[in-house]
Structures are given as structure tokens and as C-alpha cells.
């Protein structure tokens, strides 16, 4: 589903080179590594926010290395969530659908569907200011998944949550993947999250990605 072939990325003085790995359709792969090793940089390169200096990124066998982020159809959940302060929860879920010019009825239907899946139906009319950490996480997840992207990139989605909410969100992520069948690349440095969620674990070390245990 996602394939990185010998990818090199330069970000200022930071450089990653020879990054290669592959994710199969419907897999939940966790990418681990210590802070500052370039995990977020890899996610940004996959969704097109950071240019790749050499190598190729393929999505479903299509080379998207030079594609605009808007054309890649990848759901992205950054670590800080980056919710839109001027939009309410409904508008977050409807954002990508409106850009696709779907009908009002189709948008309403999909928003309700996502809100039910993520358990945020009572929040739909709320502004994002004042939402709890767990609620904000669900809204960001719903925003990323509403347009049914085949791939979802999660950047430390559980790192800022308390233990109870973290467990709850782990369950939710599993449930979401079962229902949607989305392929997930999940960056974390938390071993427990990886053990609970991953079909496979990749480790980023010294600028190279390898299978855990290799």
C-alpha cells in the first residue's frame, strides 16, 4: 500500500538517507525510534509536506513522490493535532468532504457516521476550544478519516494523554481500523502502544529503518 524506495530527505542540517520500507493494505505498522531521529520527517515526506531529495514514494504502486499533498489522499494526524480554531467539530469532519464538493446530504450522512464511530455525536456543534485531550484527539482522527483515505499517518497520537484516555484511545484506534480497513503508519516511542496496536514494528536508527528484531 505504501512503499518507500531508498528515500533521502534533507531538512536543514538534518538528513535521512536510504529509507526503505513497505506497508501492506490494512496493516497497522508502528515506526519507533528515539526523539529527533526523523520519524515525523518521514511522515511529512509521505504526505507530501516535505520534499524528497532522492528515491521514490509509492502509494498503491503509483509513484506519488512529486505529487501535491492535496492529491495524495492521505489522512494525517500530527502530534499537536493542529485543529482549526475557527471551525466547530462538525466543520472539521466536513472539511475534506466539502473540498470534494460532495452533496450536503452525503456530507451530513458521513459526518454523523464518523461522529458515531468516534463517539463524539454530542460534540458536533461545539467549538474546539474547551474540548478535552481525548475529545480533541477524536476530532482530529475524524477529520483525517472523513474522506475515507486509504492510508492514515499518526504522529504520536497518544503521547499527550493520561493513562485512562490512552487505553480508551488504543481501543478506539483498533476499532476504527477494523471498521474502515485503513492502512496505518503510526509513529511512537512508547513500547506499550506498539505492542498493543502494531501488526509489525519498524525501528528508525541512525537514519535507517529496519524491522524490529533484525
Amino acid at each position, binding site marked *: 500500500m505504501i512503499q518507500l524506495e531508498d528515500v533521502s530527505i534533507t531538512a536543514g542540517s538534518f538528513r535521512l538517507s536510504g529509507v526503505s520500507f513497505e506497508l501492506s493494505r490494512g496493516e497497522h505498522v508502528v515506526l519507533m525510534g528515539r526523539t529527533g531521529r526523523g520519524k515525523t520527517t518521514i511522515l511529512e515526506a509521505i*504526505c507530501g*509536506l516535505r520534499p524528497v531529495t532522492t528515491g521514490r514514494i509509492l502509494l498503491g504502486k503509483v509513484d506519488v513522490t512529486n505529487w501535491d499533498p492535496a492529491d495524495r*489522499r492521505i489522512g*494525517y494526524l500530527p502530534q*499537536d493535532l*493542529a*485543529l482549526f480554531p475557527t471551525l466547530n467539530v462538525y466543520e472539521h469532519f466536513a472539511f475534506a468532504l466539502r*473540498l470534494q464538493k460532495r452533496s450536503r446530504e452525503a456530507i451530513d450522512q458521513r459526518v454523523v457516521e464518523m461522529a458515531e464511530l468516534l463517539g463524539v455525536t454530542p460534540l458536533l456543534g461545539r467549538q474546539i476550544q474547551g474540548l478535552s485531550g481525548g475529545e480533541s484527539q477524536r476530532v482530529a482522527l475524524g477529520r483525517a478519516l472523513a474522506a475515507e483515505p486509504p492510508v492514515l499517518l499518526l504522529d504520536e497520537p497518544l503521547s499527550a494523554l493520561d493513562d485512562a484516555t490512552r487505553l480508551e484511545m488504543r481501543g478506539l484506534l483498533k476499532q476504527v481500523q477494523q471498521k474502515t480497513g485503513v492502512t496505518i503508519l503510526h509513529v511512537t516511542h512508547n513500547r506499550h502502544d506498539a505492542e498493543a496496536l502494531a501488526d509489525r514494528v519498524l525501528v528508525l536508527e541512525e537514519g535507517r529503518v529496519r524491522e524490529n528484531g533484525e
Partner: protein
Amino acid sequence: MLGTIGGCYLVLMVLLLVANASYTDPSHFKAILAKPEIRYAFKLTIVSCTVAAIMSLWVGTALGYLLARFSFRGKWLVDTLVDVPIVLPPLVLGLSLLILFHLPIGGQRLEDLFQDAARWVQGRLPSWMPEAVRTTPLRITYGVPGVILAQFSVACAFAIRTMRITFSQINPRAEQVARTLGCSRGQAFWRITLPQALPGMLSAFTVAWARSLGEFGPILVFAGATRMRTEVLSTTVFLELSVGNLEASVAVSLLMVAMAFAVLGVLRLVGGELGR
């Protein structure tokens, strides 16, 4: 302690206003408002400040965004150039504008090029438009456009600074996420960043408007202070003072203070609503 320091400044401002107010009475206001040239200056001030502020906001938004979001070669130079009108004596800016518009470039002066362009546009205006609009010769130097350009030249620098700070306080990540959701760069700016920048835009407009209202030096040099033509309230204060009419001069000054209060008050109210 902090209250005392801040309080001293506030007391000074209040004393200045009280001193001005004690030097005038309602009859002076009646007298100045009865003068057609001061009514003209009042109207021109409102129009020119508003046009200059809108232009400043437009340029300030574009340049502020560019400076806040992008790194490019020569950025330090752009940054420095933007600050030039802030540090330059206003009179020098007016003089520079005057020289620029009268300097022959390729055998033609900028002023002549503008007048030719204005004549070309006027010649193509439909006949139903007022004859004055179609036939009145337009010029920048010593004309109303000169007043606006002089105000804009200074006010814009402040608008750019305000917008740069505004954009640098907005999380660029939200814009990036919007792009992964299907937005082009432009759509992400319009849909996500600009709505967040609205309170900052209002501040930039306010600062630009207020700067334009207080502008005097560049207007005097570049547009002149011709009554019923290029006179704005700041030049009225000077003109009245120069003929020894101190009462009228003070009354116009207080009128400007009232205008500033009214505009700033309304914009703060609107800004408060936007902030919510």
C-alpha cells in the same frame, strides 16, 4: 510599582487632552465646522485614511505572510526595507516620493506616465459617468492620490509588522493538515489561516488608519496643503496655526482625537467580537 509607572504616562495623556480642551470651547468647534474648507479636509481625511489603510492591509497581509512563513534569499534585505519608513523622518519620505515621481526614467517621469494612464482610462469611461470623473485631470503629486500615497508609504510599514507578528503566531501545521485534506496552498490560506488572522488584520487596519490620520510631513511635501484640494486635518492644524488661529488649530486637533477614539473604539468592539 508597575501601576505607578504606567499611570504616569496615562496622566500625561489626560493632561494633554485637558489642556487642549481648556483652550477651546464649543463656539470654536461650531466655527471650524462651519468652514467649508475644514469640512472638505474632514471628508478627505476619512476617505484617504480609509483607502490608505485598506491598501496597507492588502500589502501587509501578503508581505507579512511571506516574511512569517518563508525563508528565501535576501529576506534580511526585505525585512530591512520594510522598516525604512518607520525609522526615516517623515519629511524625508515625502521628499523621496517627490523626487521619485519627477525623476526622468527612460525619458519620462513617473508623474507623466500616471497622468497619461489616467487620461487613457478616462477616455474609455462610459458617457453616463459624471463629466467631472471623465474629464478632470488626475495627478499624483499635489493631488489627492498623492495624499493617499504619502499616508500609505508610512502606514503600510506598520501594517506589515503587525501582520507578520499575527502570522507567526498562527500554527503553520494547521495549514499543512488542510493541504493533506485536499486544499491547495491558496485554499489552505483562505480557509484556515486567514480566518485566524482576522483579529490581527483588524489591528493592522487600525494601526494603519491611525498612522494615516497623524501623517503630516510627507503629505505636506508630496501633496501640499492646498485648501479644498489636498488639505487633510493634520495639515489643517498646521495651516490654522501658521495664520495665528490657535483656537481653530486646537479645535481641529481635538476633533482628530475624537475621530481616533471613535474609530479605535468601534474597531476594538468589532475585534472583541471576532476574538470571541
